[in-house]
C-alpha cells in the first residue's frame, strides 16, 4: 500500500497524459508503419518503412524541411539576441521603465489577426498600394519587391520578420525579469574593481542569466520547428503552391489539405519532426549542462 500511494496520486495525471499524449503517439507510430492505409475501408497492404521513404522523397516535404530549418536557424538566435539587447536596454533606463516594458509586451497580448493585418499593410501589394515597406524602398530609390507573392528570399524574409516579431515580447519579458533578479551587489563589486561595462556584461550578467537564455533557446527551437500558423497568416492556406510550407503545414495538408486523406504519410512526417526536435533539444540540454554553474 505504501508503495502504491504515490502512484495513486499520480493516476489522474498519468491517465490524462496516457489518453491525450501517449496513445496518440503510439497511434501515429502505427499509422506511419502501415503501407497503403485506406481510411474509408480501414485496410492496409503491409507493414514497413515505405511511408518514410515516400515522405523523404516528396519534393514538397523537402521544401517544407528546408523552410523550417531556415526559419529555425535564423529566427531563434535573432529573436534571442534582439530580446537580450532590448532587455538590457530596458534594464538600464530609469525613467518610464514600466511604460517601455508595457509597450514591448503589447504584441504578446495583441490578436494574431491584428498583427497579421499590420504585416499586410507593411508588405502586401494590392491594387491600391505596394505596401509601406515597398513605398519606403522606392522613396530611397530602390525597386520594390512583392514580399507576399514574389521571390523566395523576400517571402522568407517576411516570414522570419513576422516570427521574430511574434516571439520577441515573451523573450523580452523573461529576460528583463532574469536581469532584474541578479543581485545588485555583483554590479557594485564589479564597479569597485573598475570592471568595464563590456566585461561586466560578458563575465557577470550573461553567465548569471544563462539558464534563462538556454530555456529561451530550447523553447524557441521547439516553437520554430512547430511553426505553421504564421505562414498561413501571411501566405494563405495553399502553402505548397507558395513554396512556404513548413513541416507541420505538410502534416496538416496530408491529413486535411486539398490532397488530404493520407494519415500514414502525415504520421511519418510528424515522426520525422519529432525525431528532429528531440535530437536538437537533447543537444541543447547537454550544452547547457556543460556551461552551467
Amino acid at each position, binding site marked *: 500500500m505504501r508503495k502504491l500511494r504515490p502512484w495513486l496520486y499520480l493516476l489522474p495525471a498519468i491517465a490524462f497524459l496516457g489518453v491525450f499524449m501517449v496513445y496518440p503517439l503510439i497511434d501515429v507510430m502505427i499509422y506511419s508503419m502501415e503501407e497503403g492505409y485506406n481510411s474509408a475501408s480501414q485496410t492496409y497492404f503491409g507493414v514497413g518503412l515505405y511511408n518514410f521513404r515516400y515522405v523523404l522523397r516528396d519534393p514538397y516535404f523537402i521544401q517544407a524541411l528546408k523552410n523550417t530549418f531556415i526559419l529555425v536557424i535564423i529566427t531563434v538566435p535573432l529573436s534571442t539576441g534582439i530580446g537580450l539587447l532590448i532587455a538590457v536596454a530596458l534594464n538600464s533606463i530609469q525613467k518610464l521603465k514600466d511604460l517601455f516594458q508595457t509597450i514591448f509586451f503589447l504584441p504578446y497580448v495583441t490578436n494574431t489577426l491584428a498583427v497579421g493585418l499590420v504585416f499586410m499593410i507593411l508588405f502586401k501589394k494590392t491594387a491600391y498600394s505596394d505596401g509601406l515597406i515597398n513605398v519606403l524602398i522606392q522613396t530611397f530609390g530602390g525597386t520594390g519587391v512583392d514580399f507576399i507573392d514574389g521571390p523566395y528570399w523576400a517571402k522568407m524574409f517576411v516570414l522570419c520578420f513576422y516570427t521574430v516579431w511574434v516571439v520577441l515580447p515573451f523573450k523580452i519579458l523573461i529576460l528583463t525579469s532574469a536581469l532584474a533578479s541578479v*543581485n545588485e*551587489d*555583483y554590479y*557594485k*563589486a*564589479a*564597479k*569597485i*574593481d*573598475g*570592471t*568595464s561595462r563590456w*566585461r561586466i556584461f560578458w*563575465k*557577470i550578467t550573461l*553567465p*548569471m542569466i544563462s539558464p534563462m537564455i538556454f530555456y529561451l533557446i530550447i523553447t524557441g527551437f521547439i516553437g520554430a520547428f512547430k511553426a505553421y500558423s504564421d505562414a498561413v497568416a501571411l501566405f494563405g492556406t495553399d502553402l505548397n503552391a507558395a513554396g512556404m510550407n513548413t513541416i507541420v503545414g505538410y502534416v496538416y495538408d496530408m491529413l486535411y489539405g486539398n490532397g488530404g486523406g493520407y494519415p500514414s504519410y502525415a504520421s511519418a512526417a510528424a515522426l520525422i519532426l519529432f525525431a528532429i526536435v528531440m535530437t536538437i533539444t537533447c543537444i541543447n540540454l547537454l550544452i547547457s549542462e556543460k556551461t552551467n*554553474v
Partner: protein
Amino acid sequence: MKVILEHLTKRYPSRDKNGKDVIAVNDFNFEIPDGKLIGLLGPSGCGKSTTLNLISGLESPTEGKIWFGEDDVTDLPPEHRGVGLVFQSYALYPHMTVRQNIMFPLQNLKGKDKLSKEAMNQKAEEAARLVQIERLMERKPREMSGGQQQRVAIARALVKMPRILLLDEPLSNLDARLRLQTREEIRRIQKNTGITTVFVTHDQEEAMSISDEIVVMESGILQQIGNPQHVYDEPVNLFVAKFLGTPAINVFEGEVKGGRLFIGGQDVLAVSGVEDQPVSVGIRPEGFILSEDGPFRTKLVQVEVMGRDTSVVSEHPDCVSGLIRSIISAENRVEAKDGNVAFELKPAKVHIFRKDSGVRIPYPEQERHV
C-alpha cells in the same frame, strides 16, 4: 591611509508626495586614523551602509568632502579610489572558481598596470594565503561554507592591496562560533596588512571587541567616536549608553536634589555639584554591589547563576527598562529580606542624563572611581 569625512551629508529624495527627504547621513565630521580598524556601529537603518558607500564612491554625497590622506576623493569614481569592499552577501561570482573570483579585480587592470598571467596568479595566491584558503582555489563558491566564502570575499577585496578596506556587516551570515573566529581572523589580517579598515556592524559586542575606535551613529547622526572602552565608560548620551553593553544598561527615572541622587524616593548616591533636576539614571549591570543595608532596595524576582557570575533579576517601579539586571560575582550569596534585595552602587557605573536631551551629566564622584 587616513580618511577624513568633512560635513558629509547624504540625502535621498522622499518617495511619498508630502514626505521629507531621508537624511541617511547627516553632517559627518570625523577622521579615521591611518592603519586603524574602525567599527561603525548603529541600529538598522541608521546609515551605516550609506556611509560606507560614500567612502567607497558607490554613492556620491549631497554635501561635504571625503579625503584619503591629502587627496580629495569626493568626485573620484570608485575604481580610482583604491578601496576594497566586502559585502554582507559576499557577492562572490557563483560561476567562477575561487581563483577566478580573486583574480577578477586584477584582470580589470589596463594599460601600464596590466599584469602578466603569472603575476596575477601569484598575487591571487598571496591573498588566498593571507586568509588561509590557498587549498580551496579551484572550488566554486557554493561548494564552500559560509566562513570560507567570507574569506574569499576578503581575499578578493585585498588582492589589489587597497588603501582602504571596507567591510559591510561581513559576519552577519555566520553562526555564533564562526562569527567569533572570523572576527579574530579579520583583526589578524588587518594587523598583518596594516590597511585602514572600516567595519560596519549592528552588533555592539563585535564592534567593541575588534575595533581600535568605534563610531556610534543613530538616524544618520554621529553620536560618539572613540576608543571602545572609553565610549563604554563615558557615553555622551543615553542612546550610546543603552546601545553598548550586554546585558544592557538599566534605566531609571530619578531626581537630583541637593547634590544627592534619588530613585523612587531612595537616596542612592552623592552627585555633588549637579543642579537640582529630574534625570534619567543609567546603571550598568556590573555597577551593583550586594549589601544588606545598601541604599538601593529592589524587589527580587530571581537569581540566575551563570558559571562565573550571578545575575540578580529584580524589579523597581521607577525602572523604565523592564527588569533590573545586575551581575555580581558568584561567590556572593544573595540573601533576600521580605523578598527585597539591597545594593550599594559604584559611582563609575552610574550615569545620569538630562531628561530632555539625554546628554550625560558628569559628576565628580564618578571621575574619582574611573
